[in-house]
C-alpha cells in the first residue's frame, strides 16, 4: 500500500488517470499486470479496468441510484450472477464498511463520510487487484477520516490488493501506508517508509510534513520585483 503526496497541481491525479488509462502519456508508459496501458484498445482497456477499483475524491456515487444499486452496479454490468447472490454480496460489502443499514437510502441522504464509505464498498465490489484512492480524506471530519483510513487499510489487507492513495493528509496517510512518494512538478522528489519520512531532513519533505509556510515550495507566486510593481525607486 503506497501513498503519493504532493501539492495541488503537482500531477498526482494525473498519474492515477494514466494508470487507469483515462489519459495517454506524451512519453514513457504505464505497465499494469504485464500490459502497457496506453497501447490497449477499448476492449483491452475495459478488461484491465475490471481489475481496478477507484475511489473518487467525493465518492462520485450515482445520484439516481440507491446505495444498494450503486454497490451492485458493477456486479450487474460485468457478471451473470443471479440477483439473490448479488443481494448477499452487496450486503456483505456494505457490512464491511459498516453501512449495511443504509442500503435503501439514496446518496443525497448520506453524510460526506458515509458517502465515501459506500463509494469504498462500490470500489471493492469485484475484489480488484489494484485500488486507487483519489483524495479519500478530503473534507471529512476527524472521526470519519479515521474510519475511512482504517477501512482502506483493512480492505487492502483482506483483499490482498495493491493500493495507491493520493492524498494531502500526511498524518492519516503515514498511519496506514507502507511506503510514501512525494511528487513535485510531475516528478518524484522524495520517497521512503513512514518512519523514514517522519525522520527525514530533506527540505521538501520537512516543509510538507510540518506544514511550513516557506521553503522549497515558496510562499510567493513568482512575479516581477515588488518595488517595480509598486513603482518605487531602488
Amino acid at each position, binding site marked *: 500500500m503506497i501513498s503519493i503526496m504532493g501539492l495541488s497541481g503537482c500531477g498526482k491525479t494525473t498519474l492515477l488517470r494514466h494508470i*487507469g488509462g*483515462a489519459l495517454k502519456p506524451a512519453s514513457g508508459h504505464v505497465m499494469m499486470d504485464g500490459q502497457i496501458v496506453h497501447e490497449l484498445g477499448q476492449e483491452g*482497456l*475495459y*478488461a484491465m*479496468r*475490471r481489475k*481496478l477499483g*477507484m475511489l*473518487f*475524491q*467525493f465518492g*462520485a*456515487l*450515482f*445520484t439516481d441510484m440507491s446505495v444498494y444499486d450503486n454497490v451492485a*452496479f*458493477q456486479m450487474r*454490468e*460485468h457478471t451473470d450472477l443471479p440477483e439473490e447472490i448479488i443481494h448477499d454480496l452487496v450486503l456483505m460489502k456494505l457490512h464491511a464498511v459498516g453501512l449495511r443499514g443504509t442500503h435503501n437510502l439514496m446518496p443525497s441522504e448520506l453524510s460526506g463520510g458515509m458517502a465515501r464509505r459506500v463509494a469504498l464498498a462500490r470500489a471493492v465490489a469485484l475484489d480488484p487487484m489494484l485500488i486507487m484512492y483519489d483524495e479519500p480524506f478530503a473534507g471529512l471530519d476527524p472521526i470519519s477520516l479515521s474510519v475511512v483510513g482504517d477501512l482502506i487499510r483493512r480492505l487492502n489487507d483482506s483483499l490482498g490488493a495493491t493500493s495507491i492513495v493520493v492524498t494531502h493528509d500526511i498524518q492519516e496517510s503515514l498511519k496506514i501506508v507502507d511506503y510514501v512518494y512525494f511528487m513535485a512538478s510531475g516528478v518524484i522528489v522524495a520517497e521512503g517508509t513512514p518512519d523514514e519520512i517522519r525522520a527525514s531532513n530533506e527540505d521538501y519533505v520537512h516543509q510538507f510534513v510540518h506544514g511550513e509556510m516557506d521553503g522549497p515550495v515558496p510562499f510567493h507566486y513568482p512575479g516581477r520585483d515588488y518595488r517595480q510593481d509598486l513603482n518605487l525607486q531602488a
Partner: protein
Amino acid sequence: MPVAKTIKTIKIIGRRSINAVWRIGMAARFFFLTLMYSGSGFRRFHLIIKELFSTGVMSLIIIIVAGLFVGMVLGLQGYETLKRYGSESALGSMVALSLVRELGPVVAALLFASRAGSAMTAEIGLMKATEQISAMEMMAVNPIARIVAPRFWAGVISMPLLAAMFSAVGVFGGYFVGVVQIGVDEGSFWSQMQAAVDFREDILNGVIKSFVFGTAVTVIALFEGYDAPPTAEGVSGATTRTVVTSSLVILMLDFVMTAIMFRGV
C-alpha cells in the same frame, strides 16, 4: 491602430469559426457513437422505459395544456378569418391541418426542448461535474451506452407521441371554442376535417417531422451535457445553449422539411 484591430477581429472570427466547426464535428461523432452503442442500450431496455417516463410522461402536462390553448386560439382566430369569406364550416379542417402539419410537431418540439432537453443537459452535465461519468468509465462501463443511448431513444420515441398528443388536444381546443362557444355546426366541423386531412400527406409527414425534431433536440441536449465544462457556470451555459440551439434547429429543419414535403422542392 486600425490594421492591428482588423487583424484581431479576423483572428477572433477565425477562432470562433474553427470552434464552431470543431463542435459540429464532435456532435456528429457523438451522434454516430450513440447509434453505434444503441445495441447495448436496447439490451438495457428498462433504462429506456425509465427515461421514457422522465422525458415523455413528465412532459405530458405542459404539452396538453399548451396544446389546448393553441387549439383554442386557432379556433378563435380561424373563425374570425374564415367568417370574412363565409367559410366558417371549414374551421375544422383549418384547425386540424395547422396542428397536424405545423404547430403540433413544431410547438411540441420547442416545449420538449425547454422541458426535457434542458433537464437532460443539466443532468448529464452535473454527472460529469461530480465525476459520475469518470467513475463509470473507470468501472469499465461505457457511459455512451449506459447513460446516453437510453436517453436518446427515449427522446426519439416520446417526441412523435407528444406531438400527436399536442395535435389531438389542440383539435379539441378548437372544437371547444368553435363549436361549443361560437356555435359553428358540429357536423361540418368534423366532416370538413375528415375530408381535408390526408393520412399520408398530412399525418405521416407530421410524424416524420416530429421524429426528426426529437432526434435533433435529444442529440443537442445530450451532446451539450456531455461536453459541458464540469463547473456550475459550464452546466448553466450548456443548458442555455441546448434550448437556444434546439429552438433554432427546429425552426430551420421545419422550413426545410415543409419545403420538401408540401412544395416538392
